């Protein structure tokens, strides 16, 4: 971490926030309190006299004050959780949102609302706690084999976040009307109308703060390395477990009340550290204070200007939007342990010998999958296997989808293989680079601002935003020579922008939701024959071009120095490969959406099957990618017939599950 020179203190940044808060509060009260017939509540039927006074007192007492209090408390809770996580994992970018705890808690509540509402009466907080704990466990087990290295943990967190995002997208797609309320809550609205939430959170926060205070000293010793800490008589494992459990508990309590509040948990500890809170005790004190003030300030700003906005912007989503630039700013200033070298060995180890026969088997499977996808379907009468008589319906409805699915699968698989070999990181994928998210952001914005959405418009918007995202990636990483860790972190920050935008859109219950979600979740639905064919042709072209980059991808995983020694101009090669990945991803995203895990998965499967050298690896994963997407598309059309689950989502659900299960072995 960098530190600012001189005698800095977090007080210097907290004080201005306090002043801003006081000013805005005063301003708001001036509008609300004196007379309801003026200012914000000016209706044609003004209240007068004692009634107005009673109402304004009630609004102040039961809406404004609790809202301000809950903002402080939630911010403090997240700040505290963030400090604990960062300390335990020795990871400067750990936080409830980056580790997937918040979204896990949210998914738990979504599922409970839909399938077991009885659980919620028992206590929504426990449901949230279970969800958060499970997703943290998954994140940690995914990054366990890499010694919980910061980037590995955060990457695993992102993968889990994306996966949870895919799951909740399916739920929302099919229960649009029922989820009206949940969407607002999920986006982190702080609106209050009684003190009950405050009374709920306050005791929990106090208990957590006391426990954290008691743990401050032993936890501080964790900054030394583990062996010396345990030699001081601390049961390191128990201590870590306790601290992590505590942070999950606080997060879950806050999330179950007001939904996901993005990035306060990350920003608060990091900023107070930058402002000079060196010791853990100092950070435990200042991070909650700063977190609370940060959230309150954001909320007050939104309150002040909400009257001018036709749509609601929930505070939690807003802090999420602010957090992404912060992360981008932060990344170049972090000194992260590099893990690239250690990985290249593990990733290149393979269990089985690669065989050309394996190719044949894969191709046979691919053929079978295509035939099933083309000829087998459900109809109102039940399952139908139709062959020659149905050419028209097969060619019109199924062939384009199969072509497009195959094409997108190949493109994503090639992109994924390239990026994984280039960064030497098995968790890297096009999704992780943020290009898919960037494309999706462009699509959302387009749909929001245009009344008449057409396919060419969307394609244009998607392509443009992919290019912009790529430019951002290149700009931010040019000076560091496209170093893999930073590249991935930049991608995470861009992906982090996507979530809050999506939340805001969903929270407003816009009837266009279903359209947006259908597009975002990546369906081959909109593909016509020529698009499908061109996707496949592009994919085929890319596959034939792979020999050109194969040598680079064989050499790059050996490390920068070896690559330089072999006469490779590493920076230039990385730039070319990056641009290539971006193009591949953008095309694929337009067809199957930002969330399919094909780019992550196909390279893994190919490697498990024994393709370790670059060229067979590329080709093998291309076939696996096509296979995965064709099967996903077909399954999506059949599982909930006549409703269609978008192929991208099916691939994400199948692939993600397999991935999390399979990664234990790495």
């Amino acid at each position, binding site marked *: 971490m960098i530190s600012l020179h001189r005698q800095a203190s977090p007080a210097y940044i907290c004080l201005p926030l306090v002043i801003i808060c006081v000013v805005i509060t005063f301003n708001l009260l001036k509008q609300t309190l004196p007379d309801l017939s003026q200012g914000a509540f000016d209706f044609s039927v003004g209240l007068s006299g004692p009634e107005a006074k009673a109402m304004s007192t009630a*609004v102040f007492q039961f809406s404004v004050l609790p809202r301000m209090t809950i903002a402080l408390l939630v911010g403090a809770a997240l700040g505290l959780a963030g400090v604990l996580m960062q300390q335990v994992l020795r990871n400067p970018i750990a936080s409830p949102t980056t580790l997937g705890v918040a979204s896990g808690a949210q998914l738990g509540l979504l599922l409970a609302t839909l399938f077991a509402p009885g659980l919620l009466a028992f206590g929504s907080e426990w449901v949230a706690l279970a969800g958060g704990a499970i997703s943290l466990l998954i994140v940690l087990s995914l990054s366990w084999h890499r010694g919980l290295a910061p980037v590995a943990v955060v990457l695993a967190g992102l993968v889990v976040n994306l996966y949870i995002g895919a799951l909740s997208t399916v739920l929302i797609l099919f229960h649009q009307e029922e989820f*009206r309320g949940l969407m607002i809550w999920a986006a982190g609205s702080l*609106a209050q109308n009684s003190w009950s939430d405050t009374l709920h959170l306050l005791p929990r926060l106090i208990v957590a703060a006391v426990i954290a205070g008691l743990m401050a000293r032993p936890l501080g010793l964790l900054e030394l390395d583990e062996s010396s800490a345990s030699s001081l008589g601390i049961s390191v494992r128990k201590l870590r477990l306790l601290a992590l459990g505590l942070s999950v508990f606080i997060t879950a309590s806050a999330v179950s009340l007001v939904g996901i509040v993005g990035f306060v948990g990350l920003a608060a500890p990091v900023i107070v550290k930058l402002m000079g809170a060196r010791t853990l005790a100092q950070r435990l004190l200042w991070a909650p204070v700063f977190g609370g003030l940060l959230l309150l300030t954001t909320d007050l700003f939104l309150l002040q200007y909400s009257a001018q906005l036709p749509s609601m912007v929930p505070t939690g989503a807003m802090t999420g939007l602010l957090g992404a630039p912060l992360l981008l700013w932060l990344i170049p200033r972090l000194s992260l342990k590099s893990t690239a070298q250690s990985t290249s060995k593990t990733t290149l180890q393979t269990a089985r010998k690669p065989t050309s026969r394996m190719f044949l088997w894969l191709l046979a499977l691919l053929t079978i999958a295509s035939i099933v996808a083309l000829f087998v379907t459900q109809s109102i*009468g039940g399952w139908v296997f139709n062959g020659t008589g149905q050419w028209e*319906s097969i060619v019109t409805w199924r062939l384009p989808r199969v072509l497009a699915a195959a094409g997108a699968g190949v493109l994503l698989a090639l992109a994924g293989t390239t990026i994984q070999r280039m960064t030497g990181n098995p968790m890297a994928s096009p999704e992780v680079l943020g290009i898919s998210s960037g494309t999706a952001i462009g699509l959302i914005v387009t749909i929001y601002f245009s009344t008449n959405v057409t396919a060419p418009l969307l394609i244009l918007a998607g392509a443009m935003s992919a290019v912009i995202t790529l430019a951002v990636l290149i700009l931010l990483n040019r000076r560091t020579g496209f170093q893999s860790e930073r590249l991935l972190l930049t991608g995470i920050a861009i992906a982090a922008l996507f979530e809050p935008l999506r939340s805001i859109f969903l929270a407003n219950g816009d009837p266009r939701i279903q359209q947006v979600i259908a597009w975002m979740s990546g369906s081959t639905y909109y593909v016509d024959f020529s698009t499908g064919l061109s996707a496949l042709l592009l994919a085929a072209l890319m596959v034939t071009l792979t020999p050109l980059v194969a040598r680079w991808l064989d050499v790059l995983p050996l490390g920068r120095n070896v690559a330089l020694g072999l006469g490779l101009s590493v920076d230039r090669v990385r730039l070319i490969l990056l641009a290539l990945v971006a193009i591949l991803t953008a095309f694929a995203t337009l067809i199957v959406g930002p969330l399919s895990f094909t780019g992550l998965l196909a390279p893994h499967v190919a490697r498990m099957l024994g393709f370790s050298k670059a060229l067979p690896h590329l080709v093998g994963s291309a076939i696996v990618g096509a296979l995965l997407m064709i099967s996903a598309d077909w399954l999506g059309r059949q599982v909930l017939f006549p409703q269609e689950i978008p192929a991208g989502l099916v691939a994400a659900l199948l692939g993600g599950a397999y991935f999390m299960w399979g990664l234990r072995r790495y």
Partner: protein
Amino acid sequence: MQTGSAGTWLAMVSAAKCQRFCFPAMLFFLDNLLLSVRHFGHPQARVGGLLLLPFFFLTFVSLNVDASVSSPSQSQNEAPRVAAIDWTLVETLMSLGIVPVAAAQIKDYQAWVVEPSLPEQVVDIGLRAQPNRELAASLNLDLILISPLYSAIEPTLSQIASVQTLTTYNPDNDFWQNLVETTRRVGELTNHSAEAEAVIEHHRTRIDQMKEKIATDTPPLLVVQFIDDRHVRAYGEGSLYDMVINRLGLQNAWKGETNMWGYTTVGIEELITQGYLVIVDPVPMSAEEIFNNNRLWQALPAVRHDRVLSLPAVWSFGALPSAVRFADELYQALTDQHATELGLNNL
């Protein structure tokens, strides 16, 4: 699914046979395939897998079954076979006495639009944003009705039948006039122009009758729907409820900003009105607690003066039938309320 001819009956029987026969065959095949992949090295398994391949294809080709079960029979007043993606258009069709052949998300329609309810023979063609085209194509449709919301799927749907895009939400026009135009247009497209005029006239007079009977000095109304225990949707200019209120000669109390569909999401502290607070069902479970012991709620002028009206669910993006149903319910509630207020005053 109308009267089945002998041919379609045969097709159905053979489809059933095909399932019974083909499924085990496929499973057997897949099972062997998995086995042979797993025991990759075993020559026996490989031979077995390869032997099964041609068998599999043969099953396919020999059992070629016609999928379309329904025949393009003419029914109902020479109305074309029509499907509607948008619920508002489904509602309009039903009001003209036309049962659509297919509609999207029927289960949700029954839950949210409620009236007019759809008979069972209507085929569900899946999500509104992505209706199942293959299924739709097998229904021999003549016409598909969509709203501009789903214009992205217009080109692809037009491969199945002629697609008509009908606008109900158009901020430039009078909302009532929009609904009238839509109804008229649906009538034209389905050869039901006379019925359409009758329906329009009927709804117009219903509302006019109610307007005559409603006291002109009725205080303004603030129409909301609860989203959860902290948020409500307030319906302002551009919404169906607002249109009905104005049409009845009443005043809408919500003057704040609204989105393209005429509503906005706010907290309950903003529900300040001297007039009536109208709550449209459904109220989520979590919100019901508010009515009992929330101090802020109790401080609202409408609550203090017992001027809260509760209405059953009415589709807030509906067409003429929904509009009149809302007017009906509102009128009923206002009359009841008026009676109690009078009774109180007389005491």
